[in-house]
């Protein structure tokens, strides 16, 4: 079931007298399914926050459509089952944690008895039970962030939109938030995570979309984005002894061989090619100690992608196994391509 559906979404900001136009979003598409953890990535100014703001009705789209749980985001009712944690949120400092949940619970339409029942549960989940009756102005950044999560969950939403949820949270707290988000996703909540912390996204999300200059530059499952190239594979080989003749033979077979810190990186055509190389090495008396497929981190993919946009606008680049789309390609109506089952619109073959 698709709970967030964004199609051809565009936003152009105009200055006061309309002389200058800034394109924040240039026709993006993506969707998030029920129970899915979806990450929205991109450098500053890529359009991530604008996307989230449009989904919440904080900003109006110039064109395209965005739907939450089947309702257009222009309808306030679309937000009845949506929880949101904004970046840099400012809960009124004069409220206690308990009052904060009561105010925002009521604003989401909850009655007093439901709020009274949910409040201790949620405060327990975010480890703020002992702080229930302390004013928010006395909270640390991490505590405020955890309270924000509780406030986003107070009305038991089906969709969670989280903007930098681990901002200011210590490593233990971050892990707890990650666990909490996974738990919420396993309960069927769809979660859209907007974060600069790529390692967080990599550890938490199932799928991501990378925004660049207001367009979806790459999208798909993290495992696909970070996998080896689709036309080949890269492996880390630890073996000894390795004679120079053996490396020459590898290269002659078409393998890409690089020595790095006592091990070798092998770029091969396919598994058959890899096995041929290993057979040859073993035939020469080389002992294979370790052979592992190499995967890029999401950060590698992200940095390559952003650098690519600065230096190269030619055709699609293959980065870590998932195709990404250059700026020139996304200008067409075809939208971003992806391999390995990755599709920005999760309903179309992401599985």
């Amino acid at each position, binding site marked *: 079931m698709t709970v967030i559906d964004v199609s051809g979404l565009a936003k152009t900001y105009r200055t006061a007298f309309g002389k200058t136009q800034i394109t924040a979003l240039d026709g993006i598409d993506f969707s998030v399914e029920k129970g899915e953890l979806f990450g929205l990535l991109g450098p500053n100014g890529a359009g991530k926050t604008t996307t989230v703001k449009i989904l919440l009705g*904080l900003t109006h789209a110039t064109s395209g459509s965005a739907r939450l749980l089947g309702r257009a985001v222009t309808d306030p009712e679309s*937000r009845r089952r949506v929880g*949101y944690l904004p970046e840099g*949120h*400012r*809960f*009124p400092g004069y409220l206690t944690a308990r009052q904060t949940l009561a105010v925002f619970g009521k604003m989401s*339409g909850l009655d007093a008895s439901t709020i009274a029942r949910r409040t201790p549960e949620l405060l327990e989940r975010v480890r703020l039970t002992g702080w229930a009756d302390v004013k928010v102005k006395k909270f640390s950044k991490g505590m405020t962030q955890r309270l924000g999560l509780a406030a986003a969950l107070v009305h038991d939403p089906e969709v969670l939109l989280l903007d930098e949820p681990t901002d200011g949270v210590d490593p233990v707290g971050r892990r707890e938030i990650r666990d909490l988000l996974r738990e919420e996703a396993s309960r069927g909540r769809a979660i859209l995570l907007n974060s600069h912390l790529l390692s967080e996204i990599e550890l938490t999300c199932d799928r991501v979309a990378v925004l660049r200059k207001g367009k979806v530059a790459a999208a798909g499952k993290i495992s696909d984005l970070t996998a080896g190239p689709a036309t080949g594979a890269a492996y880390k080989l630890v073996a000894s002894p390795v004679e120079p003749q053996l490396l020459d033979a590898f290269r002659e077979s078409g393998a890409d061989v690089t020595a790095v810190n006592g091990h070798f990186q092998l770029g091969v055509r396919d598994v058959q090619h890899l096995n041929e190389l290993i057979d040859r090495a073993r035939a020469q008396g080389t002992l294979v100690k370790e052979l592992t497929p190499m995967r890029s981190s999401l950060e590698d993919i992200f940095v390559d992608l952003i650098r690519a946009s600065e230096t190269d606008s030619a055709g699609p680049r293959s980065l870590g196994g998932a195709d990404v789309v250059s700026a020139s390609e996304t200008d067409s109506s075809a939208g971003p391509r992806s391999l390995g089952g990755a599709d920005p619109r999760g309903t179309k073959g992401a599985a």
Partner: protein
Amino acid sequence: MRALVANIEDVFREAAARWTLLAYFALSSLFIFIFAMAVNLDIVDGALAGAKIFGNTLNMRGAQVDVDKLVLGFETGFSGFLYLLGTFLALFATAHLVPRLQEKGTIDLYLSRPVGRVPLLLSRYLAGLILATVNIVYLIGSVWGIVIWKTRVVHPRFALAGVIVLFAVATLLALAFLIGVVTSSTAVSLMGTFGIYLFSAILSLHERMEAAVSSELAAKAINALYWILPKTYELGQATAATVMGAEAPARVSAALSVTPFLTTAAFGIVCLALSAWLFKRKDF
């Protein structure tokens, strides 16, 4: 509905937490206290035989003043003072409602809930009006009670003055909301609203001003501004005329005509509608 009630509650909780409510009522109470302690009247057979103001005996020179007239005169003067004090205090206590709502990090929290923007804004407006009403009722009710306690004279018309003060507050608050939506600044909201308050009072002399200017265009502009802007001076006059009733001189009772009320109401409605429209369209 529950969400809107929560929003109104939040305004009161914020006013209490930020000392606004306390300052608002403390200033009103201070005035009431000074008034209660300052005036001591000696009334004999429905006439004022003697009076003390701030402990000093007033020299009556043997004359006996009709208490009814004395009370009427006092209440008329006080209603004018209340018109100024009530509107100023109400605006100071409520002008922040929109700018603070629109602050980054706050507006996101409110708009991400299933509440329409227009109801959200209007509930804040309503909360501001309730706050002002409570204060005006407190001010008028207390002074009225003290007058009755000290003179045994009951003039129900005095209470009606509060309705006109509240009408003026409602209009000016709509203007403060409009400026707040556009600028997101409490200071500008206050300056702009008080500026219009004073300027429109000056425009009550529009006929003389029109006669004084040499350009016909300028005269028309002054006339147009007079009709567009709220009639703050006339509303003050109307407050006094309401209290005085049949005793009011013709030039004062003229303010009780329907025109100043209609044009002022139109100004307020346009300001509120415009602020709601802009708030609805605004990107945060």
